[in-house]
């Protein structure tokens, strides 16, 4: 049949869709966009004749069709994730509410494609109305639309359903009944899809996406967020977050505060609260949001609703529709606002029932380069945990530590049951133990370090390959790194605004504090490792150690202070650090000579090796060359400035300190600089600079960002 069409030339085919098939084959490239698979007259689903395509969404195509009896319907073709999508729809199949488009049936055609049969709503969408009013809709219109949308959403929420894709294109005004209806609920969204023709979803969708969606959290708060955006758009004619690309829009959702200057104060407050980045700070129910809005006689409406609470939503719609008086003047009719229709308003969400996550089993959510498995709490979950647990699908245990990251160790350090001094003692004790037994621990540690490096390298390579593969198939391209970069940039901006003298006094404080910390650590080291060395030259050695560490930490602190306002280029910073390291080496060498310190403490490992001759003098003490190579490489290899960054993850990162110790030891081995003292030096410097530099608590960071926005 289909091939027959290809032979047709001037002859008009009997069935237009046959020719249509041909066209698709002939010219797939040049006619890609906005194409509907079925044309007028096609009957893909028995009993229904397609009349025209209505639209193409993220889920598939929607058609206007007429069934054999003459009933007008909208047919939604579910092309992908059939089971997941249909399960969601099934859940909503028996919902009845005036402000929701009714779903009638779910069918499968002979090719196994799923079709949702639903009410056809003739009339304009909210998008059309918004476009007609570029400077904002009249207040009465806004109220009419917003109250109706809120009721529909509330009904969904009361039934444990999160709409997840509220946007003007999904809200329609039924011109037959003059009722506003929400469509497109019950379909799981935001699952990256490889649609035909590599077509990406319209950017419009992203304008209404709450920031936590990127993390795979789909609570009902995302609907509140979308309502906030809708309200803002209706009132001002534009969405609060706009941009050239979906990435840019998502960034703004994540980081930027909305510009609400065009809104009247009561609306500004409501929209600001609805658009809070933290879902817990938004309105917890639609009713709370409605109650805050200066819409008409809201209180009276609530009272009426309570009075009429006997007629609840369940039988609301049919009775209302049929009870429509035939002779009403269509212009003056107020179909939504009549009291009989108002469903009861519950001040609180129905008790105990958490929003239901459609497809409440494991499903993969792909957001750019981040691949995560999301396991949503089921509706039966007795716990209050609303946010689904987000777990990383693949993370090697060591790699989880990343760059000074969130390992179990760090968690223990931040929030374990032990008090902080005890923890410090414990850490120092362990460090002491490790140092005393370094003879056998070090080789193992170095081996482990090497293994880790190999794993890390492999993972990085995998990480580079994976995104390029997924990039082509995802519509939402958003990497966590990009998000982090934007957040970081904004935070650093707050530093740039800080006065120079304030930053200098900060630096002075840090320098003094680091000196204090190093003095303490030196005494501690002397007690633990020096076996109470009493000879003047022995004491001088420790003075040398302390002074060298102070020099190194001062250099780092100064450079870190200069660099903290920008992210900067790694290579350039490393080279600058190396220069600083060479200066430290020279000064340290001079100090050791000046103090006549007992450098025999620094006896090399193996004097027979060829390198040793250049690195150690006749007494076994390291030469200037040894100093230069050791300090130079240590400052080159470790990204010290990250440890003095006020926006580092934790104040004192055990991980960072450990890395410093490890590198110091490795460099010590390579350049025949005594391992133990190298490691001690690394530990002292790292610990002192981390403790001495100011650190901004994450909560405070959030506040900083918000304050900045309010000032603007």
């Amino acid at each position: 049949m289909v091939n027959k069409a290809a032979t047709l030339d001037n002859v008009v085919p009997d069935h237009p869709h046959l020719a249509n098939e041909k066209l698709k084959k002939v010219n797939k490239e040049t006619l890609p966009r906005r194409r509907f698979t079925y044309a007028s007259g096609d009957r893909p689903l028995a009993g229904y004749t397609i009349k025209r395509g209505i639209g193409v969404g993220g889920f598939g195509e929607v058609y206007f069709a007429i069934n054999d009896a003459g009933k007008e319907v909208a047919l939604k073709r579910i092309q992908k994730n059939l089971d997941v999508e249909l399960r969601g729809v099934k859940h909503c199949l028996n919902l009845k509410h005036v402000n929701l488009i009714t779903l009638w049936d779910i069918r499968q055609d002979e090719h196994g494609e799923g079709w949702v049969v639903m009410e056809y709503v003739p009339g304009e969408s909210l998008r059309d109305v918004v476009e007609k009013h570029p400077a904002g809709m009249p207040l009465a219109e806004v109220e009419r639309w917003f109250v109706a949308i809120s009721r529909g959403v509330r009904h969904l929420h009361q039934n444990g359903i999160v709409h997840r894709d509220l946007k003007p294109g999904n809200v329609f005004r039924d011109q037959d009944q003059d009722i506003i209806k929400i469509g497109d609920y019950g379909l799981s969204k935001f699952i990256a899809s490889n649609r035909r023709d590599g077509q990406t979803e319209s950017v419009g969708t992203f304008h209404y996406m709450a920031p936590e969606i990127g993390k795979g959290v789909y609570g009902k708060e995302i609907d509140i967020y979308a309502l906030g955006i809708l309200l803002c758009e209706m009132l001002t004619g534009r969405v609060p977050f706009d941009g050239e690309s979906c990435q840019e829009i998502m960034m703004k959702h994540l980081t930027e505060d909305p510009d609400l200057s065009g809104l009247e104060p009561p609306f500004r407050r409501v929209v600001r609260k609805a658009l809070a980045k933290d879902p817990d700070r938004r309105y917890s129910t639609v009713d709370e949001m409605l109650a805050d809005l200066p819409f008409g006689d809201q209180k009276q409406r609530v009272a009426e609703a309570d009075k009429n609470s006997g007629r609840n939503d369940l039988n609301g719609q049919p009775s209302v529709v049929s009870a429509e008086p035939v002779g009403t003047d269509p212009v003056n009719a107020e179909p939504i606002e009549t009291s009989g229709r108002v469903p009861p308003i519950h001040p609180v969400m129905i008790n105990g029932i958490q929003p239901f996550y459609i497809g409440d089993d494991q499903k993969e959510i792909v957001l750019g380069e981040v691949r995560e498995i999301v396991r949503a709490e089921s509706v039966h979950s007795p716990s209050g945990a609303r946010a689904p647990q987000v777990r990383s699908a693949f993370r090697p245990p060591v790699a989880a530590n990343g760059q000074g990251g969130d390992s179990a160790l760090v968690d223990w350090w931040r929030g374990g049951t032990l008090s902080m001094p005890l923890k410090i003692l414990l850490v120092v004790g362990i460090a002491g133990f490790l140092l005393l037994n370094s003879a056998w621990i070090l080789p193992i540690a170095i081996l482990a370090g090497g293994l880790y490096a190999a794993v890390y390298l492999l993972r990085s390579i995998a990480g580079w390959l994976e995104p390029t593969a997924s990039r082509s198939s995802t519509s939402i391209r958003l990497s966590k790194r990009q998000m982090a970069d934007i957040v970081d940039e904004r935070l650093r901006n707050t530093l740039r605004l800080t006065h120079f003298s304030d930053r200098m006094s900060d630096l002075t404080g840090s320098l003094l504090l680091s000196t204090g910390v190093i003095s303490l650590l030196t005494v501690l080291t002397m007690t633990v490792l020096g076996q109470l060395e009493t000879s003047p030259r022995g004491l001088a050695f420790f003075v040398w150690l302390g002074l060298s560490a102070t020099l190194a930490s001062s250099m780092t602190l100064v450079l870190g202070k200069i660099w903290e306002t920008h992210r900067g280029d790694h290579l350039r910073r490393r080279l600058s650090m190396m220069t600083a390291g060479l200066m430290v080496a020279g000064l340290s060498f001079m100090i050791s000579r000046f103090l006549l310190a007992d450098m025999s403490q620094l006896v090399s490992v193996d004097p027979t090796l060829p390198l040793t001759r250049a690195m150690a003098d006749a007494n076994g003490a390291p030469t200037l060359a040894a100093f230069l190579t050791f300090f130079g490489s240590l400052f080159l290899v470790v990204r010290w400035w990250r440890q003095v960054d006020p926006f580092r993850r934790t104040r004192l990162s055990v991980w960072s300190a450990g890395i410093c110790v490890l590198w110091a030891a490795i460099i010590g081995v390579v350049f025949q600089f005594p391992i133990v003292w190298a490691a001690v030096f690394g530990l002292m410097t790292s610990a002192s600079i981390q403790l001495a530099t100011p650190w901004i608590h994450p909560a405070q960071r959030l506040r900083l960002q918000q304050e900045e926005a309010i000032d603007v």
Partner: protein
Amino acid sequence: MACDPVSNCREAKSFETDLLGDSLPGDRSVNSKFFAWIDSVGGYLVLLGDSLVLGQAVPESNVDIPVLADIQRRHLLISRSHGDYLIEPFAEVRINDQPVFGKSLLKHSDRITIGRELNVVFSQPHVLSDSARLDIRSRHRTRPFSDAILLMAESCVLGASADNHVVCPGWSRDVLLFRDGPQIKCRSMQAFAVNGRFCDGQAILRPNCRVEGEDFSLSLEQASA
């Protein structure tokens, strides 16, 4: 907007025979009409005749514009003459709330109240075309359902700009439907295909055809009485 000059009225009959073929119903009062199903835009009832009867949509009705409303079976007649549209009421009709009893001239954006409730707005959106459009503003509908009724004189312009007969958001180029003798033709600056055959600028449209361009697609469907 360059349109081919009108090759008017009577010649439309030959398109009618073309369109309806052998299944032409006996009642000659039914003028030729078809549906334009425009994807992503809407469904439009296009009427080619010069005099059109609007009446109640009942099973045995054979009026040109059947509307599901509390009106007379044959309620009014709209006729086109030299680019003007005249309305002739058979029953209660008001224009802009003023009752009309005899033939009257329709002007752009006139609000016609038919019977008590049916509200229709008459418009001639495109200055260079005599074609007109009827939009039902009350909660009524034609049968079968259509988003609007197009009274096509010599041409209909479909496209993104607001003064087209059918406003099609997002279309890069206008699409012109026009009469050429007995035929209905389609013209556009962008390449398009009719029933799968690529056309260079212009094509003849047959009944039940499919027109697809780079950013648009539509189907014509002959309408039975």
